[in-house]
């Protein structure tokens, strides 16, 4: 009798576990579908005062394109601003400093807002072996998560290369788990004329970018959900 009862209770609890798992997965799937659908439409809230913004600087040409965008944005709408660049890239944050200094030259500090500068580990350096890159990838993901928990931005601006991917994935997961809603904007590099970069393709295919901008009409034809905006350079 007792044995039978135990059997029934374990069966019942395993049934509950299965039901719970199915329930959680269903909720997550509905949440993801909701987020993707929500991301297609503008955020129709009343004009926000200012939004905390994460700016991922890609290095070299990528950084130059991002700065061209920052120069035309009304920065009092995007504050505070958090700049992230790869730990191996020592030029990009310097350029961000120069940009922020130029703002302070033009407007009052309270209008300009606060700026912070951070570096992030890259998952794989050029030429690194695949075995060691498993370890460095884990470190990079943990570091990205730590930074994202600290920043919890409302807006993310990025334009490749791969540095922005872990940050965007974490931002998307924050949306799924209701931790933070951030709008992700990705500008594909001007160097991409016929095909999206791997980062761009991932964000496009997985519906992770709220808006994805391309600088050449050929790309808009190939990826209809992208927005063609003309050249930034």
């Amino acid at each position, binding site marked *: 009798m007792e044995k039978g009862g135990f059997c029934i209770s374990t069966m019942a609890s395993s049934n509950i576990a299965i039901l719970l798992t199915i329930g959680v997965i269903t909720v997550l799937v509905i949440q993801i579908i909701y987020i993707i659908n929500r991301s297609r439409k503008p955020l129709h809230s009343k004009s926000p005062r200012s939004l905390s913004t994460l700016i991922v600087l890609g290095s070299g040409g990528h950084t130059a394109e991002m700065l061209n965008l920052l120069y035309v944005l009304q920065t009092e709408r995007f504050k505070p601003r958090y700049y992230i660049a790869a730990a191996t890239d020592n030029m990009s944050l310097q350029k961000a400093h120069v940009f922020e200094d130029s703002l302070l030259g033009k407007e009052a500090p309270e209008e300009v807002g606060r700026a912070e500068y951070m570096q992030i580990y890259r998952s794989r350096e050029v030429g690194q072996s695949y075995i060691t890159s498993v370890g460095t990838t884990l470190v990079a993901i943990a570091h990205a998560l730590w930074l994202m928990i600290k920043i919890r931005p409302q807006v993310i601006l990025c334009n490749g290369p791969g540095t922005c991917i872990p940050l965007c994935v974490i931002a998307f997961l924050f949306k799924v788990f209701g931790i933070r809603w951030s709008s992700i904007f990705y500008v594909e590099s*001007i160097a991409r004329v016929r095909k999206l970069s791997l980062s761009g393709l991932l964000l496009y295919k997985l519906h992770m970018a709220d808006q994805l901008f391309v600088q050449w009409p050929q790309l808009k034809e190939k990826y209809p959900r992208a927005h063609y905006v003309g050249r930034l350079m």
Partner: protein
Amino acid sequence: MGDIDDIAKEKRVVFVTVGTTSFDALVRAVDTPEVKNELFKKGYTDILIQMGRGLYIPTKSTAENGSPALDYFTFSSSIADYLKSASLVISHAGSGSIFETLRLGKPLIVVVNEDLMDNHQSELAEELAERKHLYCARPQTLYKTISDMDPGSLVPYQPGDAKPVAELIYRYLGFPVD
């Protein structure tokens, strides 16, 4: 003194840049008699090479019959001044130096590095060459591009504008667009 001034005025420099890494195939191509000869025929007096981390060291030389003077360095914190004083720029295909050169209105030959694994860089150079903003070459065909080129026929590049992106971002986030 007068003579030196005259020579200085007539200096026409070709600036060659490989960017932050190395591009030995380009440096080697510029160092060939064919390329130097074509440059000389087009009236260029000096070649200055930014060779990056490359292993191939070109031969320094002064101007002599049929060949411009040649000099090189590895890196510089800013190549802006070199670009400004150049009469012709021969560059790797990185978007940074391409647009910096185009904005200065300098004639530009972009040489595509065929040894790169993911060679998406040729996309940009070829697109801009089709629009006649620059010439696109490979290391082996550089001398031919120089001999065929007519810098006067290049179309000046109109710098792009980031405002359309900014407007879409504003609209999406609910900021007024003015």
